[in-house]
């Protein structure tokens, strides 16, 4: 029956990939060309406070008299950087540790998983707040490091369990018979099969990093000097923007955050579909 019970043909995922890429490219362009796009300099407080959106101030001004649109444009750079770098750090550490621990299954692996289990019962945001308050200065680097260093544990855990099941598969044994070393079996045979799960993790880590940065900034633990979507929201909150009906101060940074995460999720789902489409139904 194997031959003719055809499975539903997977979607090619091209549309999602394109849409996601467009969104992210837009944000990348904005963060690169922030100085050119923003009509006014960063943290410029030369204007009237609480101005409603107009042709001069596209998104109005905040209670300090800063142009919200300019702040949003500069904030893109911070959020983009945090998302990408924290995601990268997490992925590199998480994949390396996860695959190695899953492949070798020694006490190191057990110890690692014990640590992860322990951390799992502590809410990550609380942990970040504690860590952040102990660090002498809360620069951008510290934020990226805090997020990156805490997130990899979860990633390592899911990569490890997937590696455990992959290493039982026949192709691993076949690779060993062909004479491949442990390292290249992990890198070249197993790793590509983990691509879907790595991607799923990468997407969630990146979106979480952006959200965590916004959250930390919102709580006032972030870097006070830098502008990010989170700091804009934090300031809006601290100055009772809602009470003044200053929607232009709150909605744009919220939407930007959501759109950015959405772009990442589109890319993630799209490349998953692409992966399945190209490799056929045998990849589930």
């Amino acid at each position: 029956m194997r031959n003719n019970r055809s499975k539903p043909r997977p979607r090619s995922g091209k549309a999602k990939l394109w849409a996601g890429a467009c969104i992210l490219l837009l944000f990348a362009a904005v963060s690169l060309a922030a100085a050119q796009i923003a009509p006014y300099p960063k943290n410029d407080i030369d204007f009237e406070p609480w101005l409603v959106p107009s042709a001069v101030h596209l998104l109005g001004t905040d209670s300090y008299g800063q142009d919200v649109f300019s702040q949003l444009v500069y904030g893109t750079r911070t959020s983009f950087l945090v998302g990408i770098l924290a995601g990268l750090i997490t992925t590199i550490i998480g994949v390396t540790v996860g695959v190695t621990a899953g492949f070798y299954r020694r006490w190191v692996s057990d110890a690692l998983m014990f640590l992860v289990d322990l951390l799992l019962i502590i809410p990550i945001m609380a942990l970040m707040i504690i860590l952040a308050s102990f660090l002498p200065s809360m620069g951008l680097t510290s934020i990226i490091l805090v997020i990156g260093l805490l997130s990899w544990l979860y990633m390592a855990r899911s990569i490890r369990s997937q590696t455990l099941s992959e290493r039982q598969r026949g192709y691993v044994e076949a690779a060993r018979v062909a004479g491949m070393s442990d390292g290249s079996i992990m890198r070249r045979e197993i790793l590509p099969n983990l691509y879907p799960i790595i991607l799923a993790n990468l997407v969630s880590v990146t979106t979480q990093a952006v959200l965590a940065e916004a959250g930390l900034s919102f709580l006032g633990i972030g870097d006070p000097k830098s502008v990010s979507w989170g700091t804009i929201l934090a300031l809006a909150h601290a100055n009772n923007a809602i009470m003044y009906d200053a929607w232009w101060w709150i909605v744009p940074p919220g939407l930007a955050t959501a759109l950015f995460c959405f772009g990442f999720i589109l890319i993630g789902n799209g490349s998953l579909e692409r992966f399945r489409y190209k490799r056929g139904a045998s990849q589930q």
Partner: protein
Amino acid sequence: MSLLEVRDLQIEYASARGPFKAVDGVSFSIERGEIFGLAGESGCGKSTTAYGIARLLRGAARIVGGSVRMDGVELTKLSDAQFDAYRWARISIVLQSAMNNLNPVMKIKEQLIDAILAHRTGISRADALRQAGELMELADLPKDRLERFPHELSGGMRQRVVIAMALALRPELIIMDEPTTALDVITQKGIIDKIVELKRTFGFSVLFITHDLPLMLEICDRVGVMYAGRMAEIAARERMLAGARHPYTQGLLRSFPSLTGPRVRLEGIPGSTPDLVAPPSGCRFRDRCPHALPVCGSVQPPVQAGEDGVVSCHLYAKEDALDEAAAAGS
């Protein structure tokens, strides 16, 4: 009258690439007390045919044409409630995986009693237990195994239990889908011998499905060989041993290395089975057939019934049958 008459059965599967006929116009009959074999390779539709007869088709598969008559009663027209009177009581089924489908947390005894009570009303638990004991004896299983759990029995013993359960209500037809494929040959031999012996005692008929043609030729009275949803050939065992007629059957028989006779190179069958969503015109075997004629590409071979059985191949077409087929095809 035959016990079971299958005429022009058509079973369709819905797939994402469009519907296809896993069984496309299959006809055969099973006589009382006969073991009829249905052979063929994966995807030929043999199991689907059996599921269609036993009304076990699930999900995307459904019967779209043809008839299945048992004792003159059209089974495909019965409601589910009406068919329940046939299930187990007149038709029972033994699947390859059945031995793994026994409930792991219930003793064999309980499962046999439940099966008996479920289908036979008005008998006491004690009677059911006594009958369970008799069934164990029939299947050559020591009675103390009734008190065991399935995992305490070997695969062969579990499959014997399943066969015993299928016999519980003395059905007239037992459908066996690869009943011994998962077992070792020595175990298989014991079970096959047992089936033949029980058949002699009780006179039921068996529809025996397997890909193992040599096994089939050892136990079946008549054999039908299916290819790509169609019946290629039906012949009595002796006739087939003397020489199969359809090129596919010939190829299949050549694919099994023998334990006797000179060691000769076997050629198998080149190529692979056609895609049923877009089946080739004419004969579906033509691309793999060493004797293919020009006509095979355009005209579906007519089904020819005769003394020797049934064959569906242009090599044996009588002139008039060929003309008829050509007329029908144009």
